[in-house]
């Protein structure tokens, strides 16, 4: 599976926010062995220069970065943030977020399509944070996106895959498009399920960073992603409504 012509070393993408310390972040990244880490941009104070220390930490990890436009609620704001991110991080990959609703952090799919078109025309490789809406997905592909990142559930909620039917339909409609579950994953089993549905990658942050042991949880997610990927490749059995004995009936003794 390639993302804009590049093969990642892992299908797990890991966010870098909300860890209790830089050391725990670095150890978690080592334990998860992600294909990319996501990063962002915020105001830099000349007194503290906190961003410089963070960038040094991330650079030392040796993992490709995927910058985001988190917190942007409008097209212009998101486009400008993407331009600034491209210069600072030295990549034309951008995880495009245009938030439309504050309580659920649901994407504004109308603004998202508009911003995606502007950015792809400008040479960006856009990873749009979207919903499982098939029409919005089609418009994003027409706008030049070659990857889709639907939510599983609202960002940070940990509720997993809220609309399995919709996500399965999205997978079926776009069999050749790399699909990444971007938000809402709370447990390793959610990540496994995403791969079992045929998704190509997952992006996780809060589930690792806010767990009791982020390093241990990062390792658990690494194994869960691998399990799901292997399970999908091995072709899962069909579900049945009725029981079917797994032990052969033929040759059973009559003892009653």
């Amino acid at each position, binding site marked *: 599976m390639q993302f804009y012509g590049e093969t990642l070393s892992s299908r797990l993408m890991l966010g870098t*926010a909300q860890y209790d310390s830089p050391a725990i972040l670095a150890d978690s990244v080592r334990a998860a062995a992600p294909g990319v880490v996501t990063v962002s941009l915020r105001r830099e104070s000349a007194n503290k220069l906190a961003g410089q220390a963070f960038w040094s930490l991330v650079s030392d990890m040796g993992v490709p970065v995927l910058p985001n436009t988190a917190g942007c609620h409008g097209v212009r704001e998101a486009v400008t943030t993407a331009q600034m991110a491209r210069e600072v991080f030295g990549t034309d990959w951008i995880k495009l977020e245009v938030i439309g609703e504050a309580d659920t952090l649901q994407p504004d799919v109308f603004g998202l399509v508009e911003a995606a078109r502007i950015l792809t025309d400008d040479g960006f490789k856009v990873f749009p944070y979207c919903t499982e809406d098939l029409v919005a997905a089609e418009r994003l592909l027409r706008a030049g996106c070659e990857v889709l990142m639907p939510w599983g559930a609202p960002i940070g909620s940990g509720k997993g895959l809220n609309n399995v039917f919709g996500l399965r339909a999205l997978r079926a409609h776009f069999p050749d498009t790399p699909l990444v579950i971007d938000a809402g994953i709370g447990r390793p089993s959610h990540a496994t399920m995403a791969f079992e549905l045929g998704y190509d990658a997952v992006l996780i942050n809060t589930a690792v960073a806010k767990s009791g042991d982020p390093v241990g949880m990062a390792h658990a997610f690494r194994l869960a992603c691998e399990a799901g990927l292997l399970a999908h490749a091995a072709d899962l059995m069909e579900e049945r409504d009725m029981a079917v004995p797994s032990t052969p009936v033929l040759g059973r003794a009559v003892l009653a």
Partner: protein
Amino acid sequence: MHITVNDEARDVTADALDAILLELGYGNSKVATALDGAFVPAARRAQTRVADGARLEILAPMQGG
């Protein structure tokens, strides 16, 4: 000259963007700049004049999800 830097009022003497960054103490830090909401690439800072009352945003790498 009065300008707003990351939403804080500041007085600066320089008027070129690259000089203003030095004056504010950013040195050669890895930052991106936007003037009045528009991105200014690093390569264009020297020829970008900042007007009195301008809004300057200076951003740097930060943790993200």
